[in-house]
């Protein structure tokens, strides 16, 4: 029973990791930008949720009305900068690493490096839980999972069925030919980066809902999120979701069976194995990019 509980909780948390990874994965796969500032945007989303909900006493989920547009603009602005500088993939990694450090320190200066959490009267979801038989799930975990799966499923549908989604996929495969059919690379990349920023706002909100925040959480996300991106296949939304669930389940099991300290070991060993065995991702379609 203990293991089943751990596996399911881990899987539910994996949904949120997949949501965090999806923005990174799409911007890497489609725009060829490894955008580490995505972590900074998620952190910013979490702190904004905390701040707005605490100061104005509104439901933390409703803060999305403000944070999503703000971080959409943030993501779009960053992409505009990357585009102007015409950075290569490797340089985008370095450049965004520098920017991420700036963002983390700025967050730390604004909100201090101490743990911050919404007061119980502000956050009605913090204490609730739902039990099924002898299994208990905190409601924040369930909300996070549901919202993540909903958004990723929606993103997948958009990519598969709409003109803009097809344009994004085509753009990822062959920019030149895509342009010949009327796809404006600047507009589409800024749009995508904005959507990734918006998804960071949602992920940040979900974090603020369930845990206490510190600026250094971003570094802790690094490992698990990159594991999900690489395992899922770069630019592959459904793969990212599956990888998120897998990584969540495995790391949660590892921490129950052995100790919480083995979690990073499991996660990073998965990355290494994935890179060595299937560099195109475990869930990438055969014949990858």
């Amino acid at each position: 029973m203990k293991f089943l509980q751990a596996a399911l909780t881990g899987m539910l948390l994996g949904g949120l990791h997949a949501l965090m990874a999806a923005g990174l994965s799409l911007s890497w796969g489609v725009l060829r930008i490894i955008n580490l500032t995505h972590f900074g945007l998620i952190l910013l989303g979490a702190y904004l949720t905390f701040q707005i909900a605490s100061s104005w006493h509104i439901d933390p989920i409703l803060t999305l009305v403000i944070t999503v547009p703000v971080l959409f603009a943030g993501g779009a602005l960053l992409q505009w900068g990357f585009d102007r500088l015409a950075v290569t993939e490797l340089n985008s990694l370095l450049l965004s690493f520098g920017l991420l450090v700036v963002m983390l320190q700025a967050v730390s200066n604004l909100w201090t490096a101490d743990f911050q959490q919404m007061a119980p009267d502000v956050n009605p979801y913090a204490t609730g839980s739902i039990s099924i038989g002898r299994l208990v799930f905190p409601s924040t975990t369930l909300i996070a999972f549901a919202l993540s799966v909903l958004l990723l499923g929606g993103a997948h549908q958009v990519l598969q069925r709409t003109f803009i989604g097809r344009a994004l996929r085509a753009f990822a495969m062959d920019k030149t030919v895509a342009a010949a059919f009327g796809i404006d690379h600047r507009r589409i990349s800024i749009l995508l980066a904005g959507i990734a920023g918006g998804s960071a706002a949602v992920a940040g909100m979900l974090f603020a809902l369930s845990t206490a925040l510190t600026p250094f959480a971003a570094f802790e996300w690094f490992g698990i999120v990159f594991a999900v991106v690489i395992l899922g296949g770069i630019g592959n939304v459904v793969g990212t979701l599956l990888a998120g669930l897998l990584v969540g389940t495995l790391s949660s099991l590892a921490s129950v069976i052995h100790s919480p300290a083995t979690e990073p070991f499991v996660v990073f060993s998965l990355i290494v194995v994935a890179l060595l065995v299937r560099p195109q991702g475990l869930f990438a379609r055969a014949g990858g990019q």
Partner: protein
Amino acid sequence: MLEVRALDAFYGDARALWGVSLDVRAGETVCVIGPNGAGKSTLVNAIARLHTRTRGRIAVDGTDVCGVAPHRVCSCGVAIVPEGRRVFAHMTVHDNLCLGAYRPAARKTYKQQLQRAYELFPRLSERSNQLAGTLSGGEQQMVAIARALMARPRLLLLDEPSLGLAPVVIDEVFDALVRIGAQGVSILLVEQDVERALNLATRAYLLVEGRVAAQGSSAELRHSDAVRAAVLGT
């Protein structure tokens, strides 16, 4: 329809075209022949703005496309079937075709367009949910042509549609081009299969080492020694 004047094109500091001038009138099928490396692909890529390092004038229905951003050229009524097909390999045939109708004017009628494309290439409708990258070369060529038609072009540019295909399949592709031409679409065809190109086109240009070496009706060029010398090097 298309008017190219004194076009130069460059790759880095290498020069691929030297003052090329060429016309395609409305509804006409024109071909550009010449040996490999003569600059034929550069020419069509320059017209479709896939290649932008150019100097000179390229006017489509009077609009100079040189000053237009690459993604706006298709709105001028130009669509290209690029060399090597370049279909979107990880998208289905259906999605490849829909992408062709991305420009707003074509998007409105994409369902009818889709139907006409499948009528032109019935084989594609059987495979509409298959990934384009898994198709045979000939089928990929059909996808590339159908994708271009989805944009509802008035001028269709084709770059070596016979490349790497078996003769039977080439026949099929060229039959389709005849039907497309009959619908009133102007065609500019670049082709190394000289005989087939001249059979299809009414007029032809011979491009050698980046310059127009000869031009005239297809019949004239068919018997021209210049063509034979240029292509065979004798």
